[in-house]
């Protein structure tokens, strides 16, 4: 016979979820609400000269071709970061899953980059590739490639993609590894007995069973690429050279905190918020259908 535990107390459930609700309200809804309010204001940074301007901050953005260029760039950047990051960490996880001797050492080392703050990761990569003193830049020049991210926009973009991917690989790796380890060995062994080679076993068994993890990581990585990467851009390229690494979140930070243009910066964050909500919605609506739980 099934035994049910119920609470008769009417307010207890509310009380128990209250901390979570309060945290969500205070740290997510309140700031988001403030951002939306700020985005329809024009004011000096000290808040003394506040004016309600309806959607002027937005129309400024939408009449600026550079803003659209930045949006396009962000899409390219996010697609690169998410796809490269997921592919590389999946490969590493599959490899680490097979290692028998010294497995924990590999795993520990692969998790290390996550402990590095994005801004520090930016400095690190900038130093390696610095055109005048960087070790990697020097090595590349020996084999005839002139790497100068200070002037070359594509190289700068490549560099921030690499730094962002590197910084996020550990996180993806951990989830993929956990996912791999939860796949029943019996399934793989059965396939092996039926004559499926390692490639076939991966694509037909492991990959579909990993899809919930992969889907979760896709959402997280896109959000990371949209929001979490401004530290890397800040310490590496500051959006340059030209505007070749001027991604949206850097523009938000730069206009708001360096330029003290709170209205314009808030309008940009509201747009960014809407884009990410939309993207997440699309992912859940369309991609999740193809995910096997």
């Amino acid at each position, binding site marked *: 016979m099934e035994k049910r535990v119920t609470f008769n107390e009417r307010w207890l459930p509310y009380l128990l979820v209250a901390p979570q609700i309060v945290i969500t309200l205070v740290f997510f809804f309140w*700031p988001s609400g403030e951002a939306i309010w700020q985005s329809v204001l*024009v004011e*000096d*940074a000290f808040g003394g000269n506040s004016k309600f301007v309806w959607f002027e901050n937005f129309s400024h953005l939408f009449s600026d071709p550079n803003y659209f260029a930045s949006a396009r760039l962000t899409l390219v950047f996010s697609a690169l970061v998410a796809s490269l990051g997921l592919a590389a960490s999946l490969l590493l996880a599959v490899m680490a899953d097979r290692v028998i001797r010294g497995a924990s050492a590999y795993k520990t080392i692969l998790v290390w980059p996550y402990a590095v703050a994005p801004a520090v990761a930016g400095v690190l990569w900038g130093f390696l590739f610095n055109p*005048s003193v960087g070790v990697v830049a020097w090595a590349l020049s020996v084999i005839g490639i002139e790497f100068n991210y200070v*002037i070359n926009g594509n190289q700068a973009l490549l560099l921030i993609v690499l730094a962002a991917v590197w910084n996020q690989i550990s996180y993806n790796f951990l989830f993929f590894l956990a996912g791999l380890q939860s796949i029943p060995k019996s399934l793989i062994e059965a396939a092996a007995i039926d004559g499926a080679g390692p490639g076939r076993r991966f694509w037909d068994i492991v990959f579909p069973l990993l899809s919930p993890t992969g889907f979760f990581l896709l959402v997280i990585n896109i959000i990371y690429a949209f929001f979490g990467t401004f530290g890397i851009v800040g310490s590496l390229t500051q959006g*340059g050279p030209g505007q070749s690494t001027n991604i949206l979140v850097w523009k938000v930070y*730069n206009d708001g905190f360096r330029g003290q243009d*709170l209205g314009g910066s808030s309008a940009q964050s509201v747009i*960014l918020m809407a884009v990410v909500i939309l993207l997440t919605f699309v992912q859940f609506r369309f991609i999740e259908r193809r995910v096997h739980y």
Partner: protein
Amino acid sequence: MTRILLSSVAAAAVLASAPAAWAQTEIQFWHAMPTNLGETVNEIAAGFNKSQSEYKVVPVYKGTYPETLTAAIAAFRAKQAPHIVQVFEVGTANMMAAKGAVYPIYQLMADAKEPFDPKSYIGPVYGYYSTTDGKLLSMPFNSSTPVLYWNKELLAKAGLDPNKGPTTWPELGEMAKKAVAAGAKCGFTPQWQTWTLIENYGAWHNLPFATKANGFGGTDIELKFNDQPRIKLIQMMADWSKDKTFVYGGRQGKSDSLFHGGDCAFQIASSGSAAAAAKALGQDKLGMGMMPYSPDVIAKPQNSIIGGATLWVLQGRPKDEYKGVAKFMTYLSSTPVQAKWHQDTGYVPITMAAADATEKEGFYKKFPGRDIAVKELTLNPPTENSKGLRIGNFVQIRDVVDEELEDVWSGKKDAKTALDEAVKRGNELLKKFDAANK
């Protein structure tokens, strides 16, 4: 996102400035001077605290210039403003526009009945931060101006006289080309390119940066720096970059690694870099001189303008505390303090008396070239074009100019297209600033 960060900064600010139970009145001084510079700031505050017993200045390091400013703004909005905050020169117009938030220095000194003589300050230092009718708004603190540095070793290698620097741009070009031909990896590199090549080139050649006396006359202004001389200068650099006579090292101070690493023969950089450059290259290998000028634009250079930061006094504190702030400002401008600040840091002194005292001590004989910054600033009485710049949203405008110049260095645009575009984009930002502050 903006708001999350801003509110947490505000919360931190509230915690940091919680009232302490001192018998003395505490004066909060938020600054952006790291490491050695911060130590010197602490020494100055300690000196002031020792000189009297009524007030205690508490210097707090708040990070970079933008971080310090953001922290102060957040604190002000939370009604917990520090008394004094250090703001970089490009923030001047935005600070001025913040009505009700700042307490102008001239008014502070008058209200506190502190003696104050505008004439004792160095012209372009004082002028940059004063109203059109000469009233000082914020107290000049750390000011620098671009000077020319050269690597004597690389010049000697190229068969040039290492003790004689170029005085004009064509001369610099010729010498830099020779240095590259003799094996140098780079002829010339600028630091803070917008500040050195566009803003200071303008003042040095008496050319306007913007209308209405570079913005001193109002906020409805337009940028003017896409003129023939500057297009020519930038195009010349672009041409030089083909054979490494010019090498771009990055924004802000990032070109330092090129010059300090011994790659470049010449650098135009802040006078505040002198100590670091001497340390990297060796004092005897570092040459210093005035910035070059273009003889086809002007017969003799005008004067340079400053960069750096000033101290702004914020409103919102009990009235009697501002007496202590005024006393601290007087102490700060006194000759011994200024002379020490100048000699320890390489920033220019804000008063002529401090420069003279430093001269008398024999400091410039020991460290040749450290007097060049003051010489450049005081070369001629400042004109409308060389008094300073009062540009709204200047931080973003500098970013715009940086971006457009980088498009020239990478070969995407020619100098004229880039400067025209920079002016156009900058004017949009100025319009926005003007609209917000009407």
